[in-house]
């Protein structure tokens, strides 16, 4: 189920991203995310979930269609306005992107200084941010002295320096064990409870099932299912998720966002990643 089209929403309207004549990342995705929602973008590598995030950060421009952030069209935003756009969101990359020669405190402080914060502001806010992501006790540690989960918490802390109403996380648990994954998810949930819209691209099915949040499942640059927690149980989410990975019929034919898969003999655009060119093995096989 998608949220209504208002100024408080993030809207992808028939968005197509084409890297070349034959290489598509997204093939006409329509999706609406309401302010304050927590959404998982699920799917295998190369299905277009990262591209959806990149459209919001304006790393990628839509080839066609519209991307609206809180009612503002950002697809055609001039390059000079992109930094201001990014200050409206927090971005958590998959690889943490921490500076190895700087301590935890300095990593967050550096990012704050880069956006023009004074030393006084940095001294006041950094400890507060580190406490918020439960890493204050490791403020003097270097990244290599931290566990994966702790590094990810620093990356999330850094994403909070602008007090963003929107947090985008790309595979935040991709490099973590289940215990640390859950720690990260708890932090994201806490931020969501405080009103931050959280969009997480992941293929961590276990985390998604346990969180019981809205799940947008993607495949081949299309949204193949969109399930809210009130709709279905954890088992049903699993079914939705894995159904899309089988190249079989979509799970919910009556779903408004669901679009039919291209036929086998479809000779149109090819998937973006080479992995997708290999024979696909269903996760439950």
């Amino acid at each position: 189920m998608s949220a209504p089209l208002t100024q408080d929403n993030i809207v992808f309207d028939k968005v197509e991203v084409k890297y070349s004549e034959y290489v598509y990342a997204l093939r006409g995705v329509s999706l609406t995310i309401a302010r304050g929602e927590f959404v998982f973008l699920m799917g295998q590598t190369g299905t277009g979930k990262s591209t959806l995030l990149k459209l919001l950060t304006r790393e990628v421009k839509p080839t066609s269609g519209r991307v609206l952030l809180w009612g503002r069209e950002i697809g055609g935003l001039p390059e000079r306005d992109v930094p201001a756009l990014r200050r409206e969101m927090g971005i958590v990359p998959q690889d943490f992107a921490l500076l190895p020669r700087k301590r935890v405190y300095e990593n967050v402080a550096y990012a704050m200084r880069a956006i023009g914060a004074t030393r006084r502001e940095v001294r006041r806010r950094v400890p507060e941010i580190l406490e918020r992501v439960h890493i204050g006790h490791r403020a003097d540690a270097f990244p290599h002295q931290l566990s994966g989960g702790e590094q990810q918490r620093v990356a999330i802390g850094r994403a909070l320096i602008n007090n963003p109403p929107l947090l985008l996380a790309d595979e935040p648990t991709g490099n973590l064990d289940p215990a640390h994954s859950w720690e990260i998810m708890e932090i994201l949930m806490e931020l969501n409870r405080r009103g931050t819209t959280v969009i997480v691209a992941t293929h961590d099915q276990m985390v998604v099932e346990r969180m019981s949040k809205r799940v947008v499942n993607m495949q081949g640059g299309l949204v193949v299912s969109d399930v809210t927690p009130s709709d279905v149980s954890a088992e049903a989410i699993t079914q939705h998720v894995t159904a899309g990975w089988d190249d079989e019929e979509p799970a919910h034919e009556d779903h408004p966002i669901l679009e039919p898969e291209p036929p086998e003999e479809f000779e149109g655009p090819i998937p973006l990643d080479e992995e997708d060119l290999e024979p696909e093995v269903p996760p439950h096989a």
Partner: protein
Amino acid sequence: MLDRIEFLLTEAITAMRRNWLMSFAAISTLAVALFLLGGLGYVLIRMNAAAEDLSGRFEMRVWLRDGVSKQQISEIAADIRAIKGVKEARWVPRDIEWKRQIELTPEVAYFDNPFPDSFKVILADISLGPEVESKIKALPRVDAVEYLRAEQQFMEQLMNFLQWLATFVGGLLIVTSGILIYNAIRMNILARWREVRIMELVGASRSTIRIPFILEGMLQGLLGGFTASLLIFAAQQAVAEQLKAVLMTAALPRFPIELALVVLGGAGVVFGGFCSFLAVREPVRRRMGV
């Protein structure tokens, strides 16, 4: 504001320290280029001054035709003095010239005086020699003009060669150092891709990302300019010491080190800033990983 400047400067210095070998190559090449340009420029200025001093010694001799009256001689003197580039024109009567010759070679005393009246002309500007010569030759009752054309030409050729050498070698080195500064900045952008990526992730402005790299180029230029000034100063001191030992007197005037630091340092800053500006015009963007 000061906070901001401090951040940008710290970034620039960190970048230079991180890539010190490349920075050193750029600074030293620029220093050698500016040393050649500035040093040879200084030598040319000194030679020009010396040539002006020497011009008094480049005497021109104007021989008049036989039988010129005193009235005509004073008219010719006025005409010569009116020519641009002439400092002084003195009449040498034929009898006085003949007496001098007899003093030099007494055996010629048995002959008749072959000399006509003449003028000794001293030039104000050595480079105007040929022009003065042709104007005097065009005067009526002037038979011939003699002067040290070869010496004057040698001085001019020497100065032209030095000018050419400074322009060519210095220019070549300037281009090389420009490429080195450009490369140093590009390499620093690559070396600091993590910082650039983080700045982009959190929405730092384009100027915040680029200014440290431009500052870095300007710093390299400044250091190159200062090094060149000190090298020229050291070279000048060494030459002055050598000349002093030979001539037993202070042969060269004091080198204007303060002026050299300002001029060459300024030139380095402008040049380094320009090269680094070209380097950051290429996209510094990296994948943000989302």
